[in-house]
């Protein structure tokens, strides 16, 4: 699944470790999500959404939207 996590993180000048700390996940998890190799669970997707104050569908793109 494509996502804008890396861009949103860069906009805030956060490191992967800093974002991981804010989301209470490991840095490896943030890296895997950013590269699209790991899809976050629904609770983590909601935490990401709240952290960036954006709807989930503006961060993650499953390719189904026209």
């Amino acid at each position: 699944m494509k996502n804008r996590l890396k861009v949103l993180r860069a906009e805030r000048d956060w490191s992967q470790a800093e974002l991981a700390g804010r989301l209470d996940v490991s840095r490896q998890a943030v890296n895997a999500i950013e590269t699209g190799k790991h899809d976050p669970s629904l609770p983590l997707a909601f935490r990401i959404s709240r952290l960036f104050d954006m709807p989930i569908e503006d961060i993650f793109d499953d390719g189904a939207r026209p």
Partner: protein
Amino acid sequence: MTRDGTMQISKSKSGADNFFISHLTASAAVIILWTGYLNTLPSFVAGLAAGLVLASSALMFLFRTKDEYTLATWHAGTSAAFAASVLFLLADAFTPAFENLSAADFRLGPLAAMTAYLMAVLIKRLRDRA
């Protein structure tokens, strides 16, 4: 993150680090066990390696749920170990070469399953890093 802006080490971070350190330890111990299977090693070295594999496996089991990514890597590893176990049982049942195996050779089954687990975790980590 604390109020003064300093980074606090989360349970997820330390749990994931412990999981991956245990993975490295188990990998080194399994290499020693394979060396012991193919050649001869002093029994205390083989015993120490088996103990390390057991301890590392227990730690990986305990830390697997600390972070959802470690849980995903755990699942990748256990799927591979399951497949290796099934293949070993099938080979045992249907391959004539397995008929004359000694009791000691049957250590190969758990060792193959453990190797498959560790390899799958390593491959997933390397693939996800790119």
